[in-house]
């Protein structure tokens, strides 16, 4: 029994009343077994979105050279329907667990005649809403947080500038602004060079207080 199932990942958007979307599926590839033995055809599907047991999937079988494919197993609405007319009647058993994303089936008592055909790819239909595009939420969260950061920095520098201007207008002497963080595009850190220590201590205290308030 050489069952060569294609490894397919199908994304298909249907325009149905309930918008459905197939989710990624992974099936086993070639399987070898002895005549009279069993073979398990595994199929696990993957989805970032939460899926329930109400998925619908089916295993279809299309022999070599045949045009039609027949459904040998169907699972819908929490109930498994095993085919009882096709070539695998009475030999098929559902051993998967859709709640755990496993849709495997077991074919027992293999015959040499099973070698003739091969099951086709698995198609999976899940009824969900249309998902959000990749990266939209990622970019949104990153942008919002960085934007908030930039906003806080701008507000801080603005307040410092306003306070310095008010202090500056009161006093007569000029002094270079002492920078505590050089994280903006200024020329790099400038060492403290203010002549009046009182003013430096006062502005230092104000900066520490404003920073503590922000936390």
């Amino acid at each position: 029994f050489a069952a060569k199932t294609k490894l397919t990942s199908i994304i298909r958007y249907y325009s149905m009343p309930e918008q459905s979307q197939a989710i990624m599926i992974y099936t086993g590839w070639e399987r070898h077994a002895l005549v009279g033995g069993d073979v398990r055809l595994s199929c696990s599907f993957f989805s970032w979105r939460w899926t329930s047991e109400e998925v619908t999937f089916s295993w279809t079988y299309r022999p070599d050279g045949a045009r039609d494919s027949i459904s040998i197993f169907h699972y819908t609405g929490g109930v498994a329907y095993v085919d009882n007319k096709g070539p695998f009647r009475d030999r098929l058993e559902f051993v998967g667990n859709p709640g755990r994303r496993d849709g495997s089936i077991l074919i027992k008592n293999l015959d040499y005649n099973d070698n003739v055909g091969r099951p086709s790819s698995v198609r999976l239909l899940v009824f969900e809403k249309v998902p959000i595009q990749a990266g939209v939420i990622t970019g949104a969260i990153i942008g919002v947080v960085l934007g908030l950061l930039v906003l806080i920095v701008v507000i801080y520098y603005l307040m410092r500038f306003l306070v310095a201007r008010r202090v500056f207008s009161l006093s007569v002497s000029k002094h270079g602004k002492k920078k505590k963080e050089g994280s903006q595009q200024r020329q790099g850190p400038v060492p403290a060079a203010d002549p009046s220590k009182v003013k430096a201590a006062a502005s230092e205290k104000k900066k520490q207080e404003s920073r503590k308030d922000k936390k």
Partner: protein
Amino acid sequence: MLLLLLGIILLHVAGLVLLFVSTIVSVWTTGETTTSDLWLNCTAAIDGYHCNPATSGEWIQAVQAVMILSIIFSCLSLFLFFCQLFTLQKGGRFFLTGTFQILASLFVMSGAIIYTVMSPQWVPGSDNFGYSYILAWVAFPLALISGLIYVILRKRE
């Protein structure tokens, strides 16, 4: 004094490297034939690896964003540390550096928590958590301790 400085920087850089590895390599869950990351879901096929991007799902995108933000904040805090090292007054504390580093650790923690809570809905139950997931959890206390050290540290000389 220099030894202390080197130790602190080493701790910070170690946390940063862990964050990078955890986000980029991101082998967050592994199974027999599948690995599921923050960015790709890969499975081993007969002709190599088939990888699919994480095109949908709000929570996984939130985890991606939070991990990237933690890297950004940790890098910013390292940069700020060097800036504050040269501009801080004697006796001053590295508040800003510590704040950014603690924020980075909080981001990693929330990313790991979101992934832990949501992963039973994303991957089959038989899969185990991969090493990138563990690295993320290790990076969280490292960054937290590093941030706390910055907040407590006082500049001498």
